[in-house]
């Protein structure tokens, strides 16, 4: 049996190898182009996989990896058994869902609309201004939001007061806090996020627009039927990236939340951070990292698969 299997495998593999050799000869240059990057990935992204084993060990930096005893899945069990694991995972997913739902198309719309403006200097100025918030750290943005949303003196509550609305303590109200997170996230990143779409718009061939004009399409129709569809591949890549980063939501929440709104905003990142401080333990942090990675991987693959079912081609 085994022999037969081996022979079968050999015959099956052979064409692949032949094709590879043929490609290697024909596309020498392409392989040369790929080589440095490929080696970089192997060295800096795959070699470290060796160290992931510490997640399954009672690892001590003083003993080293080989002298640390195996403890199986204990670190993972600890993670899953921690009291607020599910709550924080749920919060992370919900907040991200809101951010994607309300925020995902904002940069796309900004890019399309900016593209419609014909005054070059105006465009350049607006563009430069829109990406400024990206460069401010969350600590600064968080401070500004706390000031603007202050119930006693904040601009927002002053304006609400004109309409007879009682002051709302947005930053300490479980009904409002997620909205604050979503809004501040959009505020900070929408302008910056539009850059990639602007670059993609530049790449759209002018012939498409020309023939559309000939066909009598007006501006809205051109935006809707040419510009927007051309951005779909880029949008999908950006979407994939954002999905892959879902569980990394940390800094923004960390600097903006407080114990009163923790039940709606404690994310996996902030929760694991707190446990990590108490434990001071690399192995546990590594286990949490592995969980994050696998969970994100599943989400990304699922997204890729769903896109494949709808469009016929996957994102990647």
């Amino acid at each position, binding site marked *: 049996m085994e022999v037969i299997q081996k022979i079968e495998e050999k015959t099956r593999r052979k064409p692949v190898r032949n094709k590879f050799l043929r490609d290697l000869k024909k596309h*020498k*240059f392409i392989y*040369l*182009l790929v*080589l*440095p*990057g490929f*080696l*970089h990935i192997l060295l800096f992204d795959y070699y470290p996989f060796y160290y992931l084993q510490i997640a399954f060990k009672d690892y*001590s*930096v*003083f*003993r*080293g990896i080989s002298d640390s005893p195996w403890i199986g899945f204990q670190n993972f069990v*600890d993670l899953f058994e*921690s*009291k*607020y694991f599910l709550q924080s995972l749920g919060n992370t997913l919900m907040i991200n869902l809101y951010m994607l739902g309300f925020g995902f198309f904002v940069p796309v719309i900004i890019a399309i609309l900016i593209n419609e403006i014909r005054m070059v200097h105006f465009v350049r100025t607006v563009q430069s201004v829109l990406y400024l918030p990206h460069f401010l750290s969350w600590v600064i943005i968080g401070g500004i939001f*706390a000031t603007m949303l*202050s*119930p*006693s003196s904040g601009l927002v509550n002053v304006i609400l007061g004109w309409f007879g609305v009682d002051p709302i*303590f947005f*930053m*300490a109200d479980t009904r409002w806090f997620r909205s604050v997170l979503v809004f501040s996230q959009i505020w900070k990143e929408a302008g910056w996020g539009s850059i990639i779409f602007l670059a993609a718009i530049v790449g759209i061939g002018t012939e498409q627009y020309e023939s559309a004009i000939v066909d009598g399409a007006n501006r809205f129709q051109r935006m809707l039927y040419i510009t927007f569809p051309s951005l779909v591949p880029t949008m999908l890549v950006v979407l994939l990236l954002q999905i892959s980063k879902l569980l990394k939501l940390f800094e923004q929440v960390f600097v903006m939340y*407080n*114990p*009163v709104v*923790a*039940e709606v905003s*404690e994310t996996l990142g902030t*929760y694991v951070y*707190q*446990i990590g*401080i*108490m*434990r*001071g*333990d*690399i192995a546990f942090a590594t286990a949490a990292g592995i969980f994050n990675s696998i969970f994100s991987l599943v989400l990304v693959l699922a997204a890729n698969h769903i896109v494949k079912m709808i469009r016929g081609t996957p994102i990647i």
Partner: protein
Amino acid sequence: MKKKRTLFGAIIPLLVIPIIAAGCGSSETNVGQSGESVPPAAHNQSGTGEKPVTENEYPEMDMRYMLRGTDKARSLLDLMEKKVKERWNVNLEIEMVDKNIYEEKLNVAFAAGNQADIVEIGNQSLVAEAIQNGALIPVDDIIQREPWNQMPESFFKTSSVDGKVYGLPQFRSLPETIYYRVDWAEKLNLKLPTTPDELYEFLYAMAKSDPDGDGVDNTYGFTIRPDFNETSAYFQMFLPVHVTNMGLYLDEEEGVIKSSYYLIDDMKAALAWFRRAHAEGVLDPEWILEVQSNSEDKFMTGKTGAWMKGVQWIGPRAAKIKQGNPDAEITSLPIVNGTYGANYATINSSTANVYLTNTSKDTERAKLVLEYLLSPEGTLDMAAGEEGVTFTVENGEIHWLAEGAEQYYNSGLIASIPIDVELPAPDPVLENNMERARGFRLVEDLAPYVSASEAVARRGADIKKVMEEYFSKIIIGDLELDQYDKFVEEVSGDLDAILEEVNAIYVTMN
């Protein structure tokens, strides 16, 4: 498409050669090199090749000292490095690392065998683990010498394992105190408080009687942080210890470690005190958003009448508050006596958390350097330097010779040295402040037992989180005071497990 694109101005130098070589139809030679993206590593050793300043019998050697902090006062560190060089021919490199990343860097450095000769390790469990694995070297021979042999034995207790001493004391234990606006209190004719109720009245007046005299109700008595750091003097009016760190304290009569979370009536009294302060506007209504810098800013700009800080750190604040308001004067409130005695209390621990690793090529010399760094002399050098070298004193005032040193001088650091050291210049503000705290309580340091507990490592973070959430919500009024019972119910399982384990450790270690 043939237009020149200036974007490539920068990239061209890298690509231009292959482009010339790679015209259409040309042969494919030597492309590999152009495609190589990883440049040869340029490893530069930092320039530590100074010539020995004096001749001594020691051969030259390098040594590294890594600790948390920033090397703002570089001129002082330079002085220390120079002294070490002259005395032991050691090229000492003092590396200060961002405290937020410090532990991570320390861990990976140990893992990679790249640790410094002398390191600060703040995490007590890591210290214990390091000692177990022989990564740290005991310093028993140092403490036989001056000035260490003059210090009380308790200074070495927390850093001893199996009868060997690993850490040296660098700072004495000083409590956090409540600073207040002296000028406001005088203006309002306030009597200094001695009980929790009087303190409340005092702060109430600061909030409601327009102490800044601008005719607008825009001041508060005080503000606190939602993680309850730097609030100990308020809680300790009602409790034996502060509520952070699971409220663990040693009941000296019974010799048992307990949690103040179970002192339900006292806890409720404390929370009721804060709750009332929040409801009546004595406590800043936005305290829940407080981060430390804001609470200091609020005190400095006259929004609040009181603020908490370590008793020895008053110097820079007293100077700073005068920048905005020359009339402003601050000092600490005297002790308020509560249910468990003085409200000013601190943990009895003096270790510097600085240790000698087993990597040093010359342990004896490393010990000498360590001893110097943590000695009163070394601490003084780090705080101020040496008279005639970094500063001079004229008419009781310090004049700095090194540029910018005055920004970082803090007499409190010298006041913390565990044996009495004379300040370079008299500092009445500091001395007066220290006098106010006289009679503070010293509580037993439980770190050796707590850090050895598995249960604390596993459950401690959850307890802290639940505590902050319940306490904040009770104070802010989202929860009733009686909900405290629910809090106890929620944490008691984990807390009991922790108490059992910590007590077992306490028994075996004593």
